[in-house]
């Protein structure tokens, strides 16, 4: 008689919760292939209700799975694979676009320009360094010697501290005298010219005179 009534309205929450748990336990047993328990509760009406629910559950468990219409699975897979291929192509295009935007590839004109400019700067730097190092080793009579003198003059010109400047002037003066002596000793410079240069030297170094004046 009470089978049609909503159990949650008829009973208090705790009872229903307990019956729900009993039912769940019985269903668990049912799903593991065990037979339906004969009695679940001391209440005969509730036992009958649970039994009916378990029979319904058993009927649902026995329902065969619905089969998808034929061909739909193949169509769905083909659609998925098409999308996958499109996605892969889009990813590849995106990757290429990112590389292109960086401009460092030879595939892009301005990318080529950047790389050539960098190579030119590096090559010029190496060339200049080699020239300066070679010039610093040059002796009078060599075609690189004027470059050495120019480098020394630039160095002196860029030294703004008067005391340091005086020091460098004296050091270079000494270096030039030693260079002349070496060149003469190696027979790369005529002795007479060397003598004349050494005599003229103080007058060739106007900075020296300035230093003397400031002292």
């Amino acid at each position: 008689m009470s089978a049609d009534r909503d159990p949650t309205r008829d009973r208090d929450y705790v009872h229903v919760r307990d019956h729900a748990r009993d039912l769940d336990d019985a269903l668990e047993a049912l799903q593991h292939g065990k037979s339906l328990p004969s009695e679940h509760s001391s209440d005969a009406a509730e036992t009958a209700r649970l039994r009916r629910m378990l029979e319904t559950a058993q009927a649902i468990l026995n329902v065969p799975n619905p089969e998808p219409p034929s061909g739909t699975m193949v169509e769905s897979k083909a659609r998925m694979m098409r999308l996958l291929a499109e996605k892969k192509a889009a990813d590849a295009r995106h990757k290429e676009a990112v590389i292109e935007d960086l401009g460092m590839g030879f595939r892009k004109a301005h990318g080529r320009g950047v790389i050539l400019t960098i190579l030119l700067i590096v090559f010029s730097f190496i060339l200049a360094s080699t020239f300066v190092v070679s010039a610093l080793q040059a002796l009078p009579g060599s075609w690189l010697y004027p470059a050495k003198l120019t480098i020394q003059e630039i160095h002196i010109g860029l030294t703004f501290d008067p005391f340091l400047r005086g020091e460098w002037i004296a050091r270079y003066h000494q270096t030039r005298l030693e260079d002349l002596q070496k060149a003469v000793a190696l027979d790369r410079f005529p002795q007479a010219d060397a003598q004349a240069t050494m005599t003229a030297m103080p007058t060739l170094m106007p900075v020296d005179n300035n230093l003397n004046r400031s002292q």
Partner: protein
Amino acid sequence: MGTNRTDEILMIQRAQQGDALAFARLHDRYYPVIYRYYYYRAHPGQSPVELTSDLFIRMVDRIGFYKPESDHFLDWLFSLARSILREDLFSRGLRFSRAEEGPAMQTRQPTEPLSSKEVSTAEGLRQALALLTPEERDVLIGKLVERRSSRAVGREIGRSAAAVRMLQYQGLHKLGASTLKGSEE
């Protein structure tokens, strides 16, 4: 079981790297399960076949976000399936109804009895389930058709395991009463 899980994770990882064969295998393995999910949950006017296909399209897009350590792959697919169902309903102008909002796909009046014979087929079960509220239906399908745990079903519908058991009790009570009436006639 452990090996199967490991195999599945490896397959998913391959799919995450874009392996087409791994995608094909995942599709073959889960197509019938997802079709069954939609078969019992789709509203009139919705096509389970289309929804199933949409799910696998979504899977291709989202598989990168799946983390094997946080969820079982099938549960993750079910959550995707649920959001697709919801979006489809929104696009059709139907609300995704919860129990308190009333059954959205009720095709048969609760007073109309069902025979036990009717419930023995998938179509009969679908019609019988239409008597229930959406939550009761989700619980009965999840627990008895898909044979998932109360916890997993609860996670999907946003309820506790205890609430799932109560909904199962209510649902089976309603169905039991209906089938009894039907068989008595």
